[in-house]
C-alpha cells in the first residue's frame, strides 16, 4: 500500500467548529441549569442531583483520562501508526480545564456524595481513623492538584505538537518522548488516587488496591470507543478523508478489544478475590451490587462489557468496516457508561437502579459541554499533526 495522499484532504475544522461549539455549549448550559434547578426544587437536599451529576461528570472525565493516557502512550512508545489519530486524542484530553469548572457543583455537594464529608463521619470510628486523608480541605487540595496536573500535561503535549505543525522540528518529538515517561508516572499516581477519592470513598469503609487499575481500564475502554467515533464523524464532515484509513480503524478496534479484555481481567481479579476470601468488610460492596435490581445490572455488565464486545471485536471484518466498527464502539461506550453508573449509584440507591430524568439532564449537559470543548480544541490546529516526523509512517500504515 502506498502512503495515503492527503494533499486533497481538508485538514481544518474551520467555521463548522464555531457553530457546533456554540450550539453544544448552549444545550449543555441549559441542561445543567435545568438539572440544578430540579435539584433545588427536590426535597432530598440535592442528593439526587449530586449523584446523577457525579455519574455524568466521572463518565465524561474518564474519556479524557483515557485520551491523556493514549497521547502519553503514543509518545512514550514512539509509535508510528497512531500519528494521524493523535490530534483528536489531544483535543479530548484538552477538556480538563472545563472539567475543573464543571466540578464546582460537585464540590458544593460533597456532603451528599461522600459519607465521610457529612455529619455521620464523627460518630464512626473507622472514618475517624481515616480522617487524616478523607477530609474536605485535603480533598480540595488533591482535587486542585489533579486537575492542575492533567490540564498542564494535556496542554503541553497539544501545544508542542501544534508547534511542530509549522516547523516540523524532530527535536520536539524527542522532547515529548522524553517527558512522556515521567508523565506516565505522574498520570498513574494522579489517576489512581483520583479513583480512590472520587468513587471508592463513596463507601469509605470499603477499599480495594486494584480500584485505580479498574477505573483506568474502563477509562481507556471508553476512550478507545470514542476515538473512532470522533474520527468517523470528522470524515463524515468531509475532513481528513484520506489520512485515516481502515487500517487505522482496524488498529483502534484491536486496541478496544485489548482493553475490553484487560477490563474483564481486572474486574474478575477484584471480584474473584473478594468473593473467594469472603471478608465481610469487602463483600458488602459486592453484596450491594449483587442483590435486588443491581444483580441483573451486574449481569448485563458482564455480558455487555465483556462477552458481547469480545465476540464482536474479535472479527477482523467488524473492525475494518466503518459502519460495524461504529456500532461496536457505540456499544462499548454505552457499556462504559453503565460501568460508571454501576460504580457510582448503588451506594445511594441500594434497592433500586435510581435512574431518573436528572441523569438524562446531567449526561446531556456535561456531554454537550464536552463536545463543545472538543470541537473548539480541534479547531485550534490542523486535524492531523502535519509536522510530525512519523506522519509518513502513519499514513502508509498497514496491518499485517
Amino acid at each position, binding site marked *: 500500500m502506498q502512503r495515503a495522499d492527503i494533499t486533497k484532504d481538508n485538514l481544518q475544522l474551520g467555521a463548522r467548529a464555531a457553530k457546533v461549539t456554540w450550539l453544544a455549549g448552549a444545550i449543555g448550559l441549559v441542561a445543567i441549569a435545568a438539572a440544578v434547578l430540579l435539584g433545588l426544587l427536590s426535597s432530598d437536599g440535592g442528593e439526587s442531583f449530586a449523584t446523577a451529576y457525579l455519574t455524568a461528570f466521572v463518565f465524561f472525565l474518564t474519556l479524557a483520562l483515557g485520551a491523556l493516557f493514549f497521547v502519553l502512550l503514543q509518545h512514550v512508545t514512539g509509535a508510528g501508526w497512531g500519528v494521524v489519530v493523535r490530534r483528536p486524542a489531544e483535543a479530548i484530553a484538552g477538556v480538563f480545564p472545563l472539567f475543573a469548572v464543571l466540578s464546582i457543583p460537585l464540590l458544593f455537594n460533597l456532603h451528599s456524595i461522600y459519607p465521610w464529608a457529612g455529619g455521620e463521619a464523627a460518630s464512626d470510628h473507622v472514618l475517624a481513623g481515616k480522617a487524616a486523608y478523607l477530609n474536605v480541605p485535603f480533598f480540595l487540595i488533591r482535587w486542585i492538584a489533579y486537575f492542575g496536573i492533567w490540564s498542564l500535561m494535556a496542554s503541553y503535549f497539544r501545544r508542542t505538537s501544534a508547534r511542530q505543525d509549522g516547523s516540523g522540528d524532530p527535536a520536539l518529538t524527542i522532547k515529548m518522548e522524553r517527558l512522556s515517561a515521567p508523565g506516565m508516572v505522574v498520570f498513574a499516581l494522579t489517576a489512581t488516587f483520583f479513583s480512590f477519592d472520587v468513587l471508592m470513598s463513596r463507601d469509605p469503609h470499603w477499599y480495594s488496591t486494584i480500584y485505580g487499575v479498574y477505573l483506568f481500564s474502563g477509562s481507556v475502554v471508553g476512550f478507545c470507543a470514542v476515538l473512532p467515533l470522533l474520527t468517523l464523524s470528522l470524515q463524515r464532515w468531509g475532513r481528513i478523508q484520506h489520512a485515516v484509513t481502515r487500517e487505522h480503524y482496524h488498529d483502534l478496534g484491536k486496541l478496544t478489544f485489548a482493553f475490553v479484555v484487560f477490563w474483564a481481567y481486572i474486574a474478575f481479579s477484584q471480584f*474473584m478475590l473478594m468473593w473467594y476470601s469472603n471478608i465481610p468488610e469487602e463483600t458488602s460492596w459486592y453484596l450491594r451490587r449483587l442483590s435486588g435490581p443491581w444483580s441483573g445490572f451486574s449481569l448485563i455488565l458482564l455480558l455487555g462489557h465483556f462477552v458481547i464486545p469480545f465476540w464482536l471485536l474479535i472479527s477482523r471484518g467488524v473492525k475494518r468496516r466503518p459502519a460495524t466498527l461504529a456500532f461496536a464502539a457505540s456499544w462499548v461506550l454505552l457499556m462504559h457508561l453503565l460501568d460508571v453508573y454501576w460504580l457510582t449509584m448503588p451506594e445511594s440507591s441500594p434497592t433500586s437502579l435510581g435512574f431518573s430524568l436528572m441523569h438524562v439532564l446531567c449526561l446531556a449537559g456535561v456531554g454537550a459541554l464536552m463536545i463543545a470543548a472538543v470541537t473548539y480544541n480541534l479547531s485550534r490546529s490542523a486535524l492531523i499533526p502535519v509536522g510530525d516526523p512519523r506522519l509518513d509512517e502513519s499514513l502508509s500504515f498497514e496491518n499485517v
Partner: protein
Amino acid sequence: MKTAIPDSTVDDPRVRPELILGGNDFTTVTDKVAGLMERPRPPRAWYIAFAVSLALTGVLVAMIGYLVLTGVGVWGLNNPVGWGFDITNFVFWVGIGHAGTLISAILFLFRQKWRTSINRFAEAMTIFAVVCAGLFPAIHVGRIWLAWWLFPLPNQQQVWPNFRSPLLWDVFAVSSYMFVSLMFWYMGMIPDLATLRDRAKTKVRQIVYGIFSLGWRGSNRQWHRYERAYLLLAALATPLVVSVHSVVSFDFAASQLPGWHTTVFPPYFVAGAIFSGFAMVMMLIIPARQYFGLKDIVTMRHLDNMSKIILATGSMVGFAYAIEFFMAWYSGNPYEMFTFLNRAMGPYSWAYWIMVSCNVLTPQLFWFKKLRGSIPVLFVASILINVGMWFERFVIIVTSLSRDFLPGSWLSYTPTYVEILTFAGSFGLFFTLFLLFVRYLPMVAMAEVKSVMPQAHLEEGIHKGLGDYWGDMPQQHGEKGGHHRGGKS
C-alpha cells in the same frame, strides 16, 4: 567480523533504526548463528560452566533425595510458616519464566520487531525456568510419590481434586503454560532446525535435526499457515502468560491473611514477573552476545529497549508497593497496618529493604541513557533485580506467615542448609539446560531475524514503512532516507 558496530540507540524520530547491524546479510546471519552449533567443540569456558552447573545439579538431586528419604522436616518450616524457600523459589522461577512468552507473544502482537533477536533465547530461558519452578511445589508436598494426585486422574480412593482451591488452579496454569511455551518454542524452531539439517555434515546431525525439523522445506504454502498459527499462538499465549502469574498470585490473595489478601496482586505479580524475567534475559544475554560474537544481532539498542521495559515494569512494582502500603493504612484494619509496619520494621526488615532497594531503586538508574548504554551497569543491575525479586516473594511469604493474627502463634523462620542448597541446585539445573541449549540449538531465531532485515523486503511498494520496525522511513522533506544498511541488496 566487524569490530566497529555503529550506535543504533540514537533517537531520531525521522528514521527507524536498523535492527541488525554490522553489514549482515542472510548468508552471514545463517553462518554466524548456525556456525555456533557446528563447531567441533565449544570454548573452554563452556566446559567449565557446564561442569559447575552439572555439579550444582548433582547437589540438587542429592538434596531432593535426602528430602524424600527423610521428610520435609529437613527444611526449616514450622507451624505458622508452612511455606518458606520452596514456594519462594517456585514463584521466583515462574516469574523468570514470563519474559520468554512476553517477548515472543506480546511484543509480537505489538509489532516490536526487535524481539526477533532475543526471542529464542528468552523462550528457552522460560522453559528451563518453568522446569525449575515446577520442581518446588512437587517436592514440598511431603509424600512426593503421590504428587500425581494433583491431576484429575482416577485413583483407588475415588476422590477427585478440589477444583475450588487456588493451588489446583496453579497446577493447571503452570502445566498449561509449560506445554504452550514448549509448543511455541518448538514451532518457532522448526525452520531453524531445517536450516541446521540442510547444513549438517555428519550423519548423526542429519538424522537428528532431520527428525526434529519434521521435513520442513520453507514452502510458502507452509509458511502461510505457519505464520497464521504463530499469530494465533501469540494471541493465545498473551492472556495465558498474564493468567499464569495471576493464578500464582491467587495462591496468596485468595486467602484472608494480611499482606497476602489484596486485590492488586494479579496485575502486580504479572508486572513483577515480567520485570524479573527481563532482568534474567539481560543477565544471560550480556555474556552470551559477548562470547558468541552476536553483538551485531543483539545490539545495544536491544539492551536499551529491554532496560526501558525493566524500568517500566519496575516502576509498576514500586507503585504497587506504595499503593499496598497506603491501602493498609487507609483500610483502618489494625492487622493490615501491623503487617506492613512489621515488614518494614520487624525482624525481616532487612529482607524488605533489600527488596525495595533492588526492585524500586535499581531500575531507576535506567532513566539515564548513559547508564542504559553501559554494559557493567546493565549486568549488575539485572543481577540486583533478580536478587530483589527473590526477596520480594520471600518477604510476602515469610513476613505474613510468621506473624499473623494471633501473637501467641508467631514463630520465625530460618532456612536450613538443605533449603539453601536446593535453591542453589536449581540454578545448576537451569544453567545445565541452558548450556545444552546454546550448544545444540539455534539461540537466535534465524528465520525471524532474516524476516526483519531490510533485504527481506521489496525496495518499493507495499512494504514501505508499514509500521515495521526495520527502518527505511523516507526523510522528512521529500528526499528519501534510502536504505541505511550495509550488506548487499
